[in-house]
């Protein structure tokens, strides 16, 4: 009985320290959209990692002259087993260069997922650094940084990305960089707002009075408290970034052939829309499902992580 008192207190204290994330996770499990989004994203990550296992063919290999090859080029009335055609070799048929469409779409998952996640990670790092600097330093630094962000926001996102890629030259890396820049202001604004409200809180003032360095205050106290809205915004951002990257590739400014990228596949087959619509249909569906997954998870996370939004 001697240890009754500390045992009573300890779990309470533990529970409190982890409560934000635990509660968020518990809320997430009860949100149908977050669950569905997580399932979609999980399936996509498995597909991307194990793409060589799922794919039936080499995504960039032309099937012309391959022994035992029975696939038909889409120009000669496409043959798609999924729609009842008998050719079993190529589930979604061949593309215009006689490559296996199904394998190309499967490998495209890798490109799109990595583009979306890398873009958003980069812009979160850059945007948060800028926003925290602006909010923490205040004064002229704050003014210069935030006015710069205003200018970036003044351009419609895709248009700015297009202009940047025009200068850097077409290619997946440059497209990624262009999209990253368009996303930076959101995270800068979000993190600046958090810093401004946290800066005056007692625990930060106390830490400063104890002689902590600004870097320590930012890393140990401000960042952990400011991160929640950034994560939510970031999850929603991945979907938009994937859409933008696909759009740039569609315009011929992003991924270059023969890279299997969904926007790129759409772009090279769009002139054959009327004869072989399946070439356009499947990569588009793939983009839509991916973006939907991130949007659902982001929406669910926003409801779960932001207690202010818990209305009902």
């Amino acid at each position: 009985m001697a240890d009754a008192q500390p045992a009573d207190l300890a779990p309470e204290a533990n529970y409190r320290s982890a409560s934000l994330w635990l509660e968020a996770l518990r809320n997430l499990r009860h949100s149908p959209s977050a669950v569905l989004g997580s399932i979609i994203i999980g399936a996509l990550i498995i597909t991307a990692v194990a793409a060589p296992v799922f794919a039936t063919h080499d995504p960039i290999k032309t099937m012309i002259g391959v022994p035992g090859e029975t696939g038909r080029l889409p120009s000669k009335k496409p043959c798609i087993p999924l729609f009842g055609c008998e050719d079993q070799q190529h589930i979604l048929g061949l593309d215009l260069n006689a490559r296996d469409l199904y394998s190309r779409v499967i490998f495209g998952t890798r490109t799109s997922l990595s583009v979306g996640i890398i873009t958003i990670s980069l812009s979160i790092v850059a945007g948060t650094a800028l926003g925290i600097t602006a909010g923490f330093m205040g004064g002229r630094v704050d003014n210069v940084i935030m006015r710069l962000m205003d200018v970036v926001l003044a351009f419609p996102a895709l248009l700015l990305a297009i202009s940047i890629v025009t200068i850097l030259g077409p290619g997946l890396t440059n497209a990624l960089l262009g999209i990253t820049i368009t996303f930076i202001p959101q995270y800068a604004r979000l993190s600046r707002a958090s810093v401004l409200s946290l800066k005056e809180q007692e625990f930060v003032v106390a830490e400063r009075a104890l002689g902590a360095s600004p870097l320590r205050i930012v890393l140990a106290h401000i960042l952990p408290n400011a991160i929640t809205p950034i994560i939510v915004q970031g999850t929603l951002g991945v979907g938009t970034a994937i859409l933008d990257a696909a759009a740039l590739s569609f315009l011929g400014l992003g991924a270059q052939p023969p890279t299997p990228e969904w926007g790129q596949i759409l772009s090279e087959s769009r002139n054959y829309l009327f004869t072989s619509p399946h070439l356009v249909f499947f990569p588009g569906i793939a983009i839509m499902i991916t973006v939907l997954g991130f949007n659902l998870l982001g929406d669910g996370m926003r409801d779960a992580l932001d207690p202010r939004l818990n209305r009902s």
Partner: protein
Amino acid sequence: MLTFVLRRLTYSLPVLFGILVVTFTLARAIPGDPCLAVLGERATKDICESFFRRNGLDQPAPIQLLIYMRNFAQGDLGDSMRFHRPVMELLVDRLPTTVELGFFALMFAISVGVPLGVLSAYRHKSAIDVGTMIGANIGVSMPVFWLGLMLAYLFAVLLKDTPLALPPSGRLTPGANPEPFYLALGWVAEGEEPLEILRFFSRINTLNAVLTLNRELLIDALRHLILPAVAVGTIPLAIIARMSRSSVLEVLNQDYVRTARAKGLRERSVVGKHALKNAMLPVITVIGLNFGLIISGAVLTETIFSLTGVGRTLVDSITSRDYTLVQGFTVVIAAGFVLINMVVDMLYGYLDPRIRFN
């Protein structure tokens, strides 16, 4: 209100200045010699020097920036390297297509999105509500260009010989050459050069058709507009529906709505007068924010539906490295975007006095 307008104006000017600096810097950052790009690989040193002098390129960069800003203020955006015509003239030629497409896309998004959102909020958790929200989630996840291609396939191929068939490309049936309204109304005599602004408006086919009372032209233009406008408008529609739903939901829980109900007002007047008016404020902001999406959508959709608008011209110019055109079009679109956002903000301040004093 006047101080609010002035404050908002002074806030927009630095942004406009920033846009000019950014487009200026971007254009200068392009690798390669502009002289060789414009005059060709075989231009000699002497020719290049005179080219630099003529275009002010021998001046230091800050002076060049000032020249660029002066020219912009005078509506001079330079000459296109590909078309060998002033960029401004090309803009008057091609902007009407984009303005028309954007307008109808926005009208589609608002006229479908707002009622759907209001209805879902009013019938919270009903089948309509759940259906709208699922539809809105799918809507925001769709790539615009893919939706455009699928619509074209559905309405131009699958429904080809039905009354629902719609043309998948162009603005008018080939061969149509509508008379501009300024000639039909006798504002400008035959053979006389019309004002640029008249030429601009006459190129908006639907407006021209209404002004010249030409019914066939109007129907033809609208039929060509439906598919691209739906493609461009779908993402904004989904966003507007979501926003109006959450906004109305919030207002319906307010005390003054309960009071209105308690007074015994009819439901229609509670929702229509008390709830809707207040719920529409955030929706207006969202509509303003959607202009960026509509411009991006137009860039992608014009390519699909073979519309020679600003977006398609811009994309084509990138591949042919026509930098003056890219710079000119970009700066005009960005400036227009700033202007529209400013107007939306002012409207917001006018409708909600609290904003003005914040």
